[in-house]
């Protein structure tokens, strides 16, 4: 019953909001280039379906590649940190600097260095930089959180560093890593959008560029359509990662075990 209500209430809210939105536009005769009605946005999606899907594919490809790269790099760096305090002390401050520097500010540089002829690579690098830190932070914290007594026990039985990493540290880190990945999934999408904005005309073909282009042409309904697709993509990424988290942790980690069970 609660499950059903979890779905019914948000859907009802959406219906109310979309309904009053539609009514307001109709009643006050709001111009479509200021705020289009939901029905106009739906028509824009239908009319531009093929090109919007191509744009979505482009943005999604950048997002997923960046997310994968950030996960690999973040976990690899965290493993390096866990094996050497010196490595961690030396490089962690720079990881923080990378995190706090607005990527929008360095995106033009990356575009110049990588070159507009390899625009996709540049977009992926920018989005990776945005998504990298939560994964590094989560994995680093997780790898450090192993039970000291368990580590002692493994050493007592002659475990190698690699065995300790694989059998104890990595499983311990999994909940922290997944939490970081959930944050990074959304950030990879934001990074892809920012990268497309910066890349500008003629080169990028993703949803963010469609937003810029539609804005310039005052095709506000198409702009909203692209925006809606972006939001939907973000929600789907989050849902997929939540599902992954649940599948991996549901049997043993407190965070994934429902209290009723």
């Amino acid at each position: 019953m609660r499950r059903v209500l979890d779905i019914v209430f948000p859907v009802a809210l959406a219906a109310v909001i979309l309904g009053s939105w539609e009514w307001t536009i109709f009643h006050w005769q709001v111009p479509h280039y200021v705020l289009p009605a939901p029905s106009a946005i739906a028509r824009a999606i239908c009319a531009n379906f093929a090109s919007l899907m191509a744009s979505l594919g482009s943005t999604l490809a950048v997002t997923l590649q960046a997310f994968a790269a950030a996960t690999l790099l973040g976990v690899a760096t965290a493993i390096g940190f866990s094996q050497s305090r010196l490595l961690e002390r030396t490089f962690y401050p720079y990881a923080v600097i990378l995190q706090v520097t607005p990527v929008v500010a360095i995106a033009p540089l990356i575009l110049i260095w990588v070159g507009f002829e390899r625009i996709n690579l540049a977009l992926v690098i920018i989005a990776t930089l945005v998504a990298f830190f939560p994964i590094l932070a989560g994995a680093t914290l997780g790898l450090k959180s192993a039970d000291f007594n368990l580590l002692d026990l493994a050493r007592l039985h002659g475990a190698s560093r690699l065995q300790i990493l694989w059998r104890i540290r990595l499983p311990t880190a999994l909940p922290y890593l997944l939490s970081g990945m959930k944050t990074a999934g959304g950030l990879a999408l934001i990074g892809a959008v920012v990268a497309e904005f910066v890349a500008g005309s003629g080169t990028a073909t993703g949803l963010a560029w469609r937003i810029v282009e539609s804005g310039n042409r005052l095709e506000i309904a198409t702009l909203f359509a692209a925006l809606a697709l972006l939001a939907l993509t973000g929600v789907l990424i989050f849902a997929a990662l939540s599902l992954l988290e649940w599948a991996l942790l549901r049997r043993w980690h407190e965070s994934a075990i429902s209290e009723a069970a």
Partner: protein
Amino acid sequence: MTLLALSGIGKRFASTQKAGGVQALDDLSFAIQTGEFVSLLGPSGCGKSTALRLAAGLLTPDAGAVTFPHGKPEIGFVFQEPTLMPWADALTNTRLPLVLKSMPRREANARAAAALARVGLAGFERALPRELSGGMKMRVSIARALVAQPKLLLLDEPFAALDEITRNRLGDDLLRLWREDGLTVLFVTHSVSESAYLSERVLVMPPRPGRIAADIALPHSRDDRLSSVTIEAQRGINAALQAATA
């Protein structure tokens, strides 16, 4: 035959409270014979856990030496907490020492299942730690300590967090395993009654810095927790402890 000897052990720990650190152990010496059940008894913070970790080789002494005159034996270690991997079932937890030694999976599984059966957990191989009670988790921990067939079993207040009924039952099981396997046991505890009932020898440690204040032999047969022999042993240990902590 001396299995384990600690001689003139000193150990100092860094401390945020005290400049120069804390002297946990100072000139600690004792020896354990093969097949003995020895309790290390003392108040909290007397350094008995430190002594146990030194014996296991998990810590190195600042002074003195830990020696095994007839070679370092296989060691089993049981912590105060069950210290299980929460993501792994009882069988996987139990076989950890064997897997770390790269034993073939099938043989490791068979031995782990046998070890679980010995501690009364047959049928719980696939249970995760969160599905087990505190006493059962401790049993898995003991099975894991026994799975590699150690000669020396080191236990660090293993029953301190359990209720009395569970504690007594596990104590009896420990005695049975000790007799069956011809183990040598070094048992850290702060319970006078536990040490009196379980052990053949009780080493009493005063508050910090830790050393041995009394070495009490208990030549009695342990078949009853409340027998006059056990109660008499408790009196003797208690008196030694009082004298040491005064």
